């Protein structure tokens, strides 16, 4: 059977305008990569939004796979701007193959 190892998967929902900042922080804490997914609408405590690309009010989901330590470092690094920049962060354990890559 294929050998898998456990890593953290972190997903961050962020405004389109904040993606560069978030991915820069991911790079800074030493995580090897990230992937961005589009998002079309949502609702939160500040109300409803729709993907309005013309106005730049669209959001993205940034996904990154990292070791436990790097994941903690990322959460730590993002925490000062989580509330002010309206980020939503969830993380959980996943199995990956070729774990040395992350």
């Amino acid at each position, binding site marked *: 059977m294929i050998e898998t190892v456990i890593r953290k998967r972190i997903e961050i929902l962020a405004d*389109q*305008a904040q993606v560069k900042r978030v991915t820069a922080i991911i790079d800074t804490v030493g995580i090897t990569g990230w992937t961005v997914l589009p998002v079309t609408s949502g609702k939160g405590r500040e109300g409803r939004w*729709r993907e309005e*690309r*013309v*106005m730049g*009010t669209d959001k993205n989901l940034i996904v990154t796979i990292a070791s436990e330590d790097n994941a903690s470092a990322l959460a730590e690094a993002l925490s*000062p*701007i989580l509330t002010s920049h309206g980020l939503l962060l969830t993380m959980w354990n996943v199995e990956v193959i070729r774990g040395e890559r992350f």
Partner: protein
Amino acid sequence: MDTMGIQALTSPVILFFVLGLLAAFARSDLEIPEAIAKGMSLYLMAAIGLKGGIEVAESGLDGTVLAALAAGIAAGFIMPIYAFWVLKGFGRLDRLNAGAVAAHYGSISVVTFVTAVEIYTIQGNPPQGYMVAVMASMESPAILAGLLLARGLGSDGGQSKKELLHEVLLNPSVVLLLGAFAIGMIAGPSGFSDVKPFFDGLFKGILCLFLLDMGLIAARRILDARSLTWRLVAIALVLPLINGAIGTALGVGIGLDVGSAAALGVLCASASYIAVPAAMRLAMPEADPGIYLTMSLSITFPFNVLVNIGLIGALAATLSGSGAVSP
């Protein structure tokens, strides 16, 4: 309102906007894909830039142009200041949101400008091509002013000054507008002829569909609005009246023709809903788009398109000493 005014209101451009408003208020699911809407906004900016540049290539530049540019840039810095105090005082916004909203009203809306140009042209007073350059130069000053008002000269929480300035000066709208303007000036009328069916022939038709979408989005934002008070609604209606009158008077004062003076008035009256929201989300993510976008897009924009453009045109005609709106 005279025949010309009615003609303007029955133009397909305005009617499609009204259709969008009505469809969204009736909660129809009509919807234009965002990629298409974004593509249309880029098209409109490229086309308006190009056409302005070509007109300037034909007519040349003179002192009036410099005066108009200076007036526009000055207005872009000054309008946010009094807007800020009104928004904080009467509007009861905190400093941050007041600064963000002020930036929107100091900057300009390309589509409002474009609609005004269509209407004034129908009325026989086409604004000059260089007004496109004035428009482009008015996009950024208010963003700077708004940021300074909201944050002061101090730190801005992680975002470096240089990055911000970069974003403000090279924001996509400015780059595309000025770039296309320069291309128009270089290529000139002869170079333009081959691309005219696309950039000129389709212009009003695409504007129709774009305004249909803006109508849908503006009405849906109103229906979802939470943070909007009657005080903010009042500001979103009165500010364009004041800014429009000041801008028009300024335009007539520095010697612009009726159409161009009215266009300057419209630029001052209009509130950005493309370039500035994008800049605010980057530079002031804490500010609430439920306030600034709803005010500029859902209240000021329809008000300008349906009412204020007509008023400003009439004011410009009166101030210029020609009672009639059209020859």
